[in-house]
C-alpha cells in the first residue's frame, strides 16, 4: 500500500519556481556536454541566425533564482512530496532517475526568466528485489516572462525504501 501521506499528494502542485537564463550558465552547460554549437555561446553567430540571440540547448532551462529547498539534486520535487517520502522511509539518497519526456514550444533565450510549476501526476508502488519502490511521475511546465508556454517536461523517478534491512548511506 502506498503510504497515505504520500498518496494524498497525487494531483497537487509545488510552488512556482523562477529560473534565470544566464549567458555564462548556458556556455558552461554546453561545455559540460561537449557540444560546440555556436548558437550557445557566439553572440555574432546567434544574432545572424533565425534565433536572433544566444539560445540554451533544448533541455536547459537556466538556474533557479531562489533555492527553495536544500536538495543536492537537480530534480524539481515539490517540497511536501519530498518530506512525505523522507518520513515514509524513502530517503532522497536512494532516488534513481528513470527517464524523461520533453515537448518543446519555444526556444529559451539568454535573459529569459522562466517560471516552472511541477505537478505530481502519479505515484505507484511496486515490489522489487531490493524491497518496495515507488515510481513517481512529475509534470513540469515552463513559461517565459511573456507568459508564453516554452516547454512541458515529465520526469520519472524511482524511490527505494529503507526497509528489507537496507541501511541509509552514512553520508546522506
Amino acid at each position, binding site marked *: 500500500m502506498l503510504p497515505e501521506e504520500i498518496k494524498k499528494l497525487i494531483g497537487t502542485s509545488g510552488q512556482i519556481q523562477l529560473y534565470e537564463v544566464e549567458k555564462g*550558465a548556458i556556455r*558552461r*552547460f554546453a*561545455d*559540460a*556536454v*561537449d*557540444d560546440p*554549437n*555556436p*548558437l550557445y555561446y557566439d553572440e555574432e553567430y546567434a544574432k545572424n*541566425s*533565425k534565433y536572433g540571440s544566444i539560445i540554451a*540547448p*533544448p*533541455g*536547459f532551462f537556466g*538556474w*533557479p533564482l531562489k533555492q527553495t529547498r536544500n536538495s*543536492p*539534486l*537537480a*530534480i524539481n520535487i515539490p517540497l511536501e512530496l519530498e518530506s512525505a517520502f523522507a518520513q515514509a522511509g524513502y530517503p532522497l*539518497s*536512494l*532516488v534513481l*532517475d*528513470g*527517464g*524523461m*519526456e*520533453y*515537448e*518543446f514550444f519555444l526556444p529559451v533565450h539568454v535573459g529569459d526568466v522562466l517560471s516552472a510549476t511541477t505537478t505530481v501526476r502519479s505515484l505507484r508502488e511496486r515490489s522489487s528485489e*531490493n524491497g518496495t519502490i515507488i515510481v513517481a511521475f512529475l509534470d513540469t511546465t515552463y513559461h517565459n516572462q511573456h507568459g508564453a508556454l516554452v516547454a512541458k517536461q515529465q520526469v*520519472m523517478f524511482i524511490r527505494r525504501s529503507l526497509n528489507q534491512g*537496507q541501511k541509509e*548511506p*552514512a*553520508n546522506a
Partner: protein
Amino acid sequence: MPEQLFWDDIEVGMEITPLAKIATTQMLVKWAGASGDFNPIHYDTVYVTSTGFGQIIVHGALKRQWLIQLMTDWMGEQGTLKKFSCQYGGMDYPRHMKTISEPQPGETWFCNGKVTKKYIEGDLHFVDCKIGLENGNGEITTSGRVTVILPIKSL
C-alpha cells in the same frame, strides 16, 4: 555546423549520423556544476561504495543531453526539436583520469538512431526517430524517441 538537412531527403530507416562520446570522472564533475545535480554517487568513490551502486555512475541527464546533441547536430539549425523522451535502462561508468587532462584508456560510446516515420501535419513536416546510447559492449543503456520538424526544399 553540418549542412542543413531537408525533410525531402529523409527516408524511413535512414540512420542518424552517430555521435561519439566518452565519459570521465572529470566530465561528471563539470556536468554536476553545470546542471546542478550534486548527488555524490556521481563523483565520490567512498560515498558511492556505501550506497550499493559500488562505483561512480554517469548522470542520466548527461546521457540525455548527449542524445539531444545527437538530434540538434543532425537536424541542423533550421530544424526544430519538438519532442524528446529517454529512459535510463542501465548504469554507465566513467573512465578514471590518467593525468590531469587525459583519461584512462577505455570505452567510447555512441549515440545513434534511426528514422521511423515521416509525415506532414498542417504545414509542418515531421520526422520521428528512435535513438539510443550504446556502450562499449554494444548494449543500449539509454533509449528514447524523438520528433523533429524539418524544413523543405523550396521549389
